[in-house]
């Protein structure tokens, strides 16, 4: 029962991303060509609302459903890992036309070839875990 809220959030997330076409390969291509406001509108409004929500949480010290204080861990400072990792991620995002969230959503929609992308992503994650100590961070 304690997981119900997470399930509902996931269902909502899936429906919103599918209906907003954010999980369409075409929209990702169009975004990277700067030929539509569509994806920038989606990401921009999400970030705008996110900034407001996080400020509200921090300033009013809002608590979660379970009554615990909400603490959002800051990201560790650095440059190399974010820039290099980001570039690799971007190459894959533009090629497969999907980032991790959309992969799950498209699998649910029944576009079976996305499972190959998902398998590749798990393989990539696994490979990172193996070679992590040899990479600059």
């Amino acid at each position, binding site marked *: 029962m304690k997981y119900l809220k997470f399930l509902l959030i996931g269902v909502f997330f899936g429906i919103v991303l599918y209906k907003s076409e954010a999980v369409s390969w075409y929209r990702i291509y169009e975004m990277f060509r700067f030929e539509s406001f569509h994806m920038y509108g989606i990401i921009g409004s999400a970030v705008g609302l996110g900034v407001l929500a996080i400020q509200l949480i921090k300033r009013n010290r809002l608590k979660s459903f379970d009554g615990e204080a909400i603490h959002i861990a800051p990201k560790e400072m650095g440059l190399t890992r974010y820039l290099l990792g980001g570039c690799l991620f971007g190459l894959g995002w533009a090629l497969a036309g999907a980032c991790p969230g959309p992969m799950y959503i498209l699998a649910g929609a029944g576009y079976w070839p996305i499972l190959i992308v998902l398998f590749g992503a798990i393989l*990539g994650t696994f490979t990172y875990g193996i070679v992590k100590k040899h990479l600059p961070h």
Partner: protein
Amino acid sequence: MSSNLRTVCAIGGGGKVADFFRFDWKSQIWNLVVVAGAIIGGFIAHHYLTPDPSIALNPVTVDRLQSLGFENAGSSYLPQELFSLDGLSNPKNLAILLIGGFLVGFGARYAGGCTSGHAISGLSNLQLPSLIAVIGFFIGGLTMIYFLYPLIFG
């Protein structure tokens, strides 16, 4: 969203080969439940809420995609060349999907987050590392679309 990929590796026994997968994955079950919800959400949206799956792309984008060999760009939700079972019989398409996924998985863990972690949550929390990661996302994405697509699909 991408940290679930790490959790899957940990559940699959990845901890035996790398410390990176040695953590208490049970603490991440909530996140897997979100994924289960997203799968259900995709199913509901596709089967019950989307009578017309076409995408109203910019006509300029459609022309460009047609010149790259994507027929009927925008008339379906995803390009059938890559995302139909017929398309999978072409080893090149299989490689594109596999390599694309690999880069997403590898890059997301290297950068410590994906679109949801950096572009949405990180930027919302005004994190400089997330801004750097998002700049990286675009350097990679633009390189792929402008320089590599003509070589891959042209």
